[in-house]
């Protein structure tokens, strides 16, 4: 019976995975087609990759996108971690209000964030472009970092910090030698999540970017409306491989990553 049950679920799961990966496989396959459209596969070719690397506008945009993601997630991780520390130490009524405010941007629809930031930047007179996009990305990445770091802080035993003081550590030493290393997995996960959120964002960027500055999402949006270009397939393939490598790396690190990962496990009190 168990066996039977499993085979049905296997079929179902296979079906779901086919749907999930079909468009990605589709993009990848046609990136190697020598044809000009995604209609019929016309034999292997690396032509679109050559086109992509020759397209300096596209390359610039990719670099811009990565730069924004890198900087935004870095800044968001710093501010968000400080925020999580502040929330952790805050007293009851404050704590709840801070948490609610933190989650506003998490649940707000992208269009609302984009539109309200557009009004905000216009009123302040901030020129729409790199700065406004970066600030927006930092802004919507901060709550994710807080949400990733806060649980790690909460599961940190309060006696751990007491122990640090007891052994002579100052506040600063307790923070840098005990608290931060112990919550490092949360901070890392926060940075990771912030990075992907930033890379993936379309709507907010679409609202707050000006003429001179574009990210990948916005660029693809405008190109897709004009018609299909297989150069984008080539780009998709490269990005997919990059994220695949990142995920595999992350998986290996978390599986065999020695100490860092065990911090998560130690609380569950495994080895007895």
């Amino acid at each position, binding site marked *: 019976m168990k066996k039977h049950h499993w085979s049905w679920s296997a079929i179902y799961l296979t079906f779901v995975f086919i749907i999930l990966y079909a468009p990605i496989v589709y993009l990848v396959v046609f990136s190697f087609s020598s044809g000009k459209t*995604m209609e019929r596969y016309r034999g292997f070719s690396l032509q679109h990759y050559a086109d992509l690397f020759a397209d300096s506008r596209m390359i610039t945009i990719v670099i811009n996108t990565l730069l924004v993601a890198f900087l935004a997630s870095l800044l968001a991780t710093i501010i968000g971690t400080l925020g999580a520390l502040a929330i952790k130490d805050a007293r009851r009524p404050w704590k709840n209000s801070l948490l609610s405010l933190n989650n*506003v941007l998490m649940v707000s*629809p992208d269009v609302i964030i984009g539109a309200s930031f557009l009004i905000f930047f216009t009123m302040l007179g901030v020129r729409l472009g790199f700065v406004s996009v970066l600030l927006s990305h930092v802004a919507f990445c901060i709550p994710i970092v807080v949400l990733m770091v806060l649980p790690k802080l909460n599961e940190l035993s309060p006696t751990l910090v007491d122990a640090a003081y007891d052994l002579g550590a100052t506040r600063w030493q307790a923070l840098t030698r005990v608290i931060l290393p112990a919550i490092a997995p949360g901070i890392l996960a926060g940075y990771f999540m912030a990075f992907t959120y930033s890379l993936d964002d379309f709507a907010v960027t679409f609202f707050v970017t000006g003429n001179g500055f574009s990210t990948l999402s916005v660029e693809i949006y405008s190109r897709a409306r004009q018609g299909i270009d297989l150069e984008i397939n080539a780009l998709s393939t490269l990005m997919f491989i990059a994220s695949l490598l990142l995920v595999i790396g992350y998986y290996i690190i978390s599986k065999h990553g020695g100490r860092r990962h065990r911090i998560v496990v130690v609380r569950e009190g495994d080895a007895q």
Partner: protein
Amino acid sequence: MRQKAMFIVPYALWIVLFVVAPLVLILYQSFFDINGHATLGNYANYLTSSVYLKMTLNSVWYALLITLVTLVISYPTAYVLNHLPNKQFWLLLVILPTWINLLLKTYAFIGLFSRTGTINQFLQFTGLGSHQLLFTDASFMFVAAYIEIPFMVLPIFNSLAEINPSLINASYDLGATQWQTFRKVIWPLSMPGVKAGIQAVFIPSLSLFMITRLIGGNRVITLGTAIEEHFLTTQNWGMGSTIGVVLIIAMFIIMFMTGDKKQKGGRS
């Protein structure tokens, strides 16, 4: 103490500038007309115009359908995943597609669904004939659901994984069948995940505008599309803000209904 104060400064600044101020500004803006005069006209316009009301209802209806479809696909997926050895790895495989830029995936569907695209070629090959797939309600909903599936699977998976296995054994021990155990133990215990998933899917579905344009071909106008149009095309920020306020209210209603006890896998 001083250190603590320094911690909070950048974070507090962020709350004031990027959380509170924009929300206040969008409310403020909604009371101005296109020429910058203070007015209640936007709200009056919204509440009396059948176009806007119909669009709102439409938007809610489509968001509901998308959420339902996503839930129906995602719950069994999360459930089956939870019973697999190496389940974290399989979960990772579900999440992996979210790492591909949203626009790239949408772009792939344009190719797949196009008049001469792969699906139509397949349909013709099987003798079902070629159909208009792109720019239909069905394709719009399919792509929207496709995008949202991982965000629904994740919270449900987490809440299923949190269920203590001895509760399920206890249920069998007390004579419940597999189905009864599911209905009376597993389903209620996974409700927090389902609610979090609904929250994570419904609100973004209300405000989609990119997919409505690229896949739905402007047939479906959602609240999101309307806001984008008012802000970026007609430059009527007042009316756009008014619809934004409506969207925010809708958001609070959803959050209230699904209970914001636990937030898992939420997204912006």
